[in-house]
């Protein structure tokens, strides 16, 4: 069985979802790559920000 850490799960989820978003939402390979990278950064960034917000709320 596979038991990743929570952050590893976020990384995997973001990688796969961003790949599909990039390919399906844009026309050219360069724009696909850029949009995929953009989505990946947004996924990871929002997860980190929300994690800190939840930590501060819990205190």
């Amino acid at each position, binding site marked *: *069985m*596979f*038991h*990743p850490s*929570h952050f590893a*799960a976020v990384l*995997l*989820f973001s*990688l*796969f*979802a961003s*790949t*599909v*978003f990039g*390919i*399906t*939402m*844009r*026309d050219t390979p360069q*724009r696909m790559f*850029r*949009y995929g990278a*953009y989505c990946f950064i947004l996924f990871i960034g929002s997860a980190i920000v929300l994690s800190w917000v939840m930590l501060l709320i819990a205190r």
Partner: protein
Amino acid sequence: MSTTPNKPVAGKKSDEGFVYLPLIAGWLFPGAGHFLQGKWIRGMLLAVSIVAMFVLGLAMQGLLYTSVQDILSMLGVAGDLGTGLLYLLSRMFGLGAQPIQTTVADYGTKFIVVAGLLNIIAAVDAHNLRTGRKS
């Protein structure tokens, strides 16, 4: 960073043959709709991403939704069905049947549902390629 959406391409492909074949093939197996149109790299990336997400979801002991007892289960079944044959084969072999007991298993359940939803997006993209709305 440019995030402008795709511009619609004027219908340059003819409507010869069965237009919905890439849509159905893409739903049944991730990436198949793109393979049918010679988009090998796109299809391979989609297939690897969606199949990996589904398999990792099962490996995390995620749950495959099978019954529609409430609205959330119904939505879960709809999402899972998006993976097409992967869902049917997994059901056939009894995978993903154990109840969720850990946090990681809950993540796995979400991985499986999202893999199905992403596959639907990919199948619609294959259909758009077939009809010429996307190049």
